[in-house]
């Protein structure tokens, strides 16, 4: 290494400053959830647990949370099936459409959310004559979640190669037996990582959701967004926000246990 001491020190300091800037706003949300003041003046005039109690009993927030979990679970299941199929289908094949298929899978997330959102909104309403609601959110979310599963499956398949499956076939196992006893166990942690990302992506999504949810259904992000500007609800929103910050440690913990795969593939939003 030829980076000299001064430069190393500068890099360390800069990194520290960026980290502080990253975490101060999150810490502020945490502290403000105990802030007595409804307008969050700083420093807080006093601390209270009152808002946490109010938030816990907020019917709107609880219902929205349930909807979000249901949507994310269903979208994840669809993404798991379609992403795995696509990953297996594109393996070891060099047909010319390969790049087109990968592009098609990544497109719903590569294009800005409003484009995906308005395209689906228009297709559901104008073209198919559907009413927006729970079902349309799930379809929309599944569409942009496929890529997370696909990426993880593809990376794993590339790494492990095909020799074990060939051995299984040589020993007389049919394709389904081979999938069940050899391929699936090899893929399991990659699938978990993909599912985790898909769930997180869906749970947090708001842009596409606002275009596909319709007026009746509220996911948690939509609930937060609609209550953000109401002075009465602001402290409750703050508690929900603080809870979500705390909960973000859960997937990180799971991802760490799942091996390094997750770390690199998270770079795809």
């Amino acid at each position, binding site marked *: 290494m030829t980076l000299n001491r001064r430069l190393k020190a500068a890099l360390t300091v800069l990194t520290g400053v960026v980290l502080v800037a*990253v975490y101060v706003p999150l810490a502020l949300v945490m502290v403000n959830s105990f802030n007595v003041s409804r307008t969050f003046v700083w420093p807080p005039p006093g601390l209270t647990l009152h808002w946490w109690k109010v938030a816990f009993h907020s019917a709107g927030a609880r219902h929205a949370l349930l909807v979000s979990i249901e949507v994310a679970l269903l979208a994840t299941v669809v993404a798991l099936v379609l992403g795995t199929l696509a990953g297996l289908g594109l393996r070891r094949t060099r047909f010319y459409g390969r790049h087109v298929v990968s592009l098609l899978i990544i497109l719903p997330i590569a294009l800005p959310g409003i484009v995906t959102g308005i395209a689906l909104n228009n297709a559901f309403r104008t073209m198919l004559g559907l009413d927006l609601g729970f079902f349309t959110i799930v379809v929309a979310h599944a569409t942009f979640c496929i890529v997370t599963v696909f990426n993880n499956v593809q990376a794993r398949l590339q790494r492990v190669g095909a020799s074990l499956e060939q051995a299984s076939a040589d020993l007389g196992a049919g394709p389904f037996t081979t999938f069940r006893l050899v391929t699936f166990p090899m893929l399991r942690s990659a699938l978990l990582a993909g599912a985790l990302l898909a769930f997180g992506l869906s749970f947090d999504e708001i842009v596409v959701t606002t275009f596909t949810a319709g007026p009746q259904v509220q996911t948690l992000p939509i609930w937060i967004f609609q209550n953000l500007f109401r002075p009465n609800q602001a402290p409750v929103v703050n508690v929900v926000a603080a809870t979500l910050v705390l909960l973000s440690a859960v997937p990180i913990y799971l991802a760490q246990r799942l091996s390094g795969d997750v770390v690199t593939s998270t770079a795809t939003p």
Partner: protein
Amino acid sequence: MATSTASAPARAPRPGRGSLLSRSEGARTGLLLLPPMLWLGVAYLAALGALFITSLWSQNDFTGEIERIWSFDNYRQMWEVPVYRTIAFRTIGIAALVTVIDAVLAFPVALFMAKVASPRTQRLMVIAVLMPLWASYLVKAYAWRGMFSEGGLIDWAGAPFGIQSPGYGLTATTITLAYLWLPYMILPIYAGLERVPDSLFEASGDLGAGSVTTIRRVVLPMAFPAIVAGSIFTFSLSLGDYIAVQIVGGTSQLLGNVVYTNVGSANNLPFAAAYATIPVVVMVLYLAAARRTGALENL
């Protein structure tokens, strides 16, 4: 033992064994790809196509019904009405600014992670960078609302230095967007720098280059494709964002707001569809340019 494993891969599958699926690679690929391609083709490609078709239709101002008369009126309006032009250029400008800010902030952090930190610190740093990614998007935008608010943290911390919060507006929006997408820039650059072997640093030093020269002439050129890869995310995500600007932007409008208002309250879907082609065209051009740098292999 050794002979059997050596001969096994070379042996072709015996005919008559296994189903059609295992025998014909092409048929299997087709069957596997059919469901995801049907889903994406029907639910997504068709939707994008329909969006473009809708942008060529028009809206009856009285009934609010969509009239299927073909014209380029929406596109003409987009270009001729000054406010729409301003908003489009403003959005592209902010997306570019956010990308530059993120690149400038992310590079030293990524370099620290890849080449200065100990393996243990490295692992912790990856977690520290990933963690905010999992914290809800809305929560992060909302957190900055608290930071910028009157009498909020920035006002309080800046008071001794005579610094004031910029208040809600485009500056606040730019800062918030840069904050939101920063991890998407750090991670690819970190991955790219990790692949640069230490021996290159030594070679550069042996040839007489100082640290700064090494970074400028060796590290930066090698990290460039990774920076471009990260910029695809920061640029695309900023281009389409219309939530953060509503939370910290005051009354400012970005491209996404125009689209959203025209889908919702203004109920002019054809115009919204036409306006939404701007980010698509911009992103296609951006991706085409990024492709030339080899950045797409860094995603």
